[in-house]
């Protein structure tokens, strides 16, 4: 019944009329706090929309300063899709063409394929200071930034060589949307997922040709390409979910958020048939455990003090509770909660020279919390939050799935469902 309140008879394509001008969103905007050049979510979103509908010349390029964290939407008492309004305005009205740099940052698939092929050469080169200074000068990629290392063997290649054949041994099956980061930079996270899912009794399969979710294409204004990839992915998901009755799980909060919510809201790509069964691995596991269908057994000697950071898109999804609940199940974990704040990186946003200062300013309260919390490492579900925290604090960051994989007693877990 609650749905009724979001579909009033007088609404436009987006629901900006529902804004009552309470300005609560502006309190929680992380950008506004450090960069007053940004007009803020209320002005950029519902207020500006009113004007832009009359004349698109009211569009203001400063909307690019929005890092699409959606914290305004989480705060809004009236369910206004403030973040979507801002992103859609950029898509519809921006006349500025994406720069070469934006295309390099956004095309994670192409760049990843090339870079991982030549990983032993690429990694040391892009880490060199003169190279970083050149990228700063020519491409305007801030020299403070260090690109995540590329893996020599892509996850997909590893999977086909070493994991694929074993997956048919299981009675139950899921597909895994690994995303670009796992494929090109950090295959270990994918391997950890397979370890857990196999221990839980599930075979893990890859989609028929997954493509980058497109989040970076959307934020860099490459909408045509993003839409094409979205359509491709929805079809690939359908083949798993509808045709084979296999849900799709992922370890990247941003990929899954983009596929579930940004595809229909920003790109107009319908995903009704797949949305409910496209989710994060932590949520999938939580559901199994919560409904008594699965029990995980953990090693007795695992002892760590861990702080969980809630990525913005997890805040929007409302799903950090699943990751934290799983972590708290590990007996040897001393769990520290961090106040939910944006880390400032927002994917490619923080790599751009013009955003570097804002990015670090936004993240500072989080970095201070982490530094003062006396922990072994930070846990989070988002890869770009991981880079940002590792670049900006002295702590390492692990994915909850990797922590579970490390702490899990595989044999004891398997025994529970095999008998």
């Amino acid at each position: 019944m609650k749905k009724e309140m979001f579909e009033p008879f007088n609404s436009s394509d987006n629901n900006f009329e529902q804004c009552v001008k309470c300005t609560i969103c502006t309190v929680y905007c992380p950008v506004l706090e450090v960069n007053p050049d940004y007009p803020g979510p209320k002005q950029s979103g519902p207020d500006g929309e009113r004007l832009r509908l009359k004349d698109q010349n009211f569009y203001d390029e400063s909307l690019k300063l929005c890092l699409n964290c959606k914290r305004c939407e989480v705060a809004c008492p009236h369910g206004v899709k403030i973040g979507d309004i801002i992103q859609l305005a950029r898509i519809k009205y921006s006349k500025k063409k994406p720069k070469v740099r934006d295309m390099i940052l956004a095309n994670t698939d192409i760049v990843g394929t090339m870079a991982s092929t030549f990983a032993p050469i690429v990694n040391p080169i892009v880490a060199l200071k003169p190279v970083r200074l050149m990228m700063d000068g020519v491409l305007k990629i801030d020299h403070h930034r260090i690109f995540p290392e590329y893996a020599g063997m892509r996850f997909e290649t590893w999977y086909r060589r070493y994991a694929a054949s074993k997956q048919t041994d299981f009675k139950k099956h899921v597909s895994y949307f690994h995303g670009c980061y796992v494929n090109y930079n950090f295959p270990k996270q994918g391997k950890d997922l397979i370890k857990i899912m196999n221990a839980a009794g599930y075979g893990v399969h890859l989609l028929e040709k997954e493509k980058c979710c497109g989040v970076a294409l959307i934020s860099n204004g490459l909408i045509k390409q993003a839409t094409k990839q979205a359509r491709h992915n929805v079809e690939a998901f359908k083949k798993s979910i509808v045709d084979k009755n296999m849900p799709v799980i992922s370890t990247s909060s941003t990929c899954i958020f983009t596929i579930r919510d940004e595809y229909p809201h920003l790109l107009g790509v319908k995903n009704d048939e797949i949305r409910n069964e496209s989710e994060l691995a932590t949520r999938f596991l939580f559901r199994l455990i919560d409904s008594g269908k699965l029990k995980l057994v953990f090693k007795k000697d695992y002892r760590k003090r861990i702080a969980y950071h809630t990525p913005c898109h997890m805040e929007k999804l409302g799903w950090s509770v699943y990751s934290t609940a799983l972590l708290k199940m590990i007996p040897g974990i001393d769990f520290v909660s961090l106040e939910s704040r944006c880390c400032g990186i927002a994917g490619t946003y923080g790599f751009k020279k013009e955003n570097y200062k804002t990015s670090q300013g936004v993240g500072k309260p989080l970095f201070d919390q982490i530094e003062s919390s006396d922990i072994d490492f930070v846990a989070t579900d988002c890869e770009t939050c991981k880079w940002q925290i590792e670049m900006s604090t002295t702590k390492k960051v692990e994915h909850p799935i990797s922590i579970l994989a490390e702490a899990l007693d595989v044999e004891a877990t398997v025994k529970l469902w095999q008998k």
Partner: protein
Amino acid sequence: MKFDNIIIGGGLSGLTCGIKLAEQGKKCAIVSSGQSAIHFFSGSFDLLGKMDGQDVKNPLEAIKILPDTHPYQRVGIENISRLVVEAPRLLDRAGLNFFGKADENHFVLTPMGIMKPTWLTIDDFTRFEQNDAFPWKKAVILNFSGFLDFHTLFVQDGLKKYGVDTQIKNFAMKEFEAIRRNPSEMRSTNIAKVFDSGDALDEFAQKVNQLSEGFEVVLLPAVFGLFTKNVALNLKAKVNKPVVLLPAIPPSVPGIRSQILLRKRFEELGGTYFLGDNVEEGTFKNNRLVAVQTNNHGDIKLEADQFVLASGSFYSKGIVATREKLYEPILGLDIDGDTDSEKWLDEKFFNDQPYMHYGVKTDSGFRALKNGKPIENLFVAGSVLGGANALKEGSGAGISLLTSLHVAEQILK
């Protein structure tokens, strides 16, 4: 996902109820569709301010002659007398220091320059014993240049009636130049953030001391201490005259701080606060609510032994009126209100509007009614309850605090 208690609504009622239950060891969750009306907090909680248009001197006495349908009467006078002592203590444990008496209203100066009776006032603000006099004769009203949410002329006009000689002064500081570049963002919360993070307060206090020379008292907008607690108190210590803070146009700085501290208290007690999520439907079995389904959690339903509906009134969409009908949008509960829409409004705007009394129907134990039958484990608290015009009476916060404490006690029985 299983909890002992689930509260729908994360405002003053929901948080009070959640804190009380969590303090007694209950595993609680609050589902809140967005940030709450505490963001509009004036700095004071009213118990009963007005009756028949007259200021109430002793709310505890005056409550006794309210109609039987009023939430205070339904909680019971004895219970109320007890809970009015408990409420400020609960707030105090959350780090919110309120002062005032339930059997004797004090007064606060509003941003319209009038004295209003109230029950509890947070320590940022000044409590006055009389409403027919102002303790000082020469006052300076200070405002930040470019800050449009503090209307100094209203304050000046109001104080004139008390025979106070006032002067308005605006001032600028370089720390506020950045936020002033964007006139629509020169807001109280952004000014407060400057004081929170930097060392602007010392220079500011010096400036206040200079500008208030020759005056007995300084009036300022309440823009101190958003994420940091003691900014207003520190300011008062640094200024060499009494400082009277007045609420600015919302969002309210003391209000947001209160929301943050209440939520923090709830979470420190082990509570789970789901922000930005909506309850979409409930599963009922044998006159019991078994589980609720939310937008974010979908098929993973939230289960509990008892539920509390504290979803607010019309403004928070706890109840909704369309041209055709009046309804409770989350669980489809019975509404105490007129079915004939002609009777909802009194055409004289300032009259006691009938619709303001509408709310969810309950039995005497504050259990919600659905199709005429009480739902055994679903309690209702706060402004979603009918039976009072909180605006006319000055009773909104009192009803929220006391009915939620009462409901929590029913659950703990």
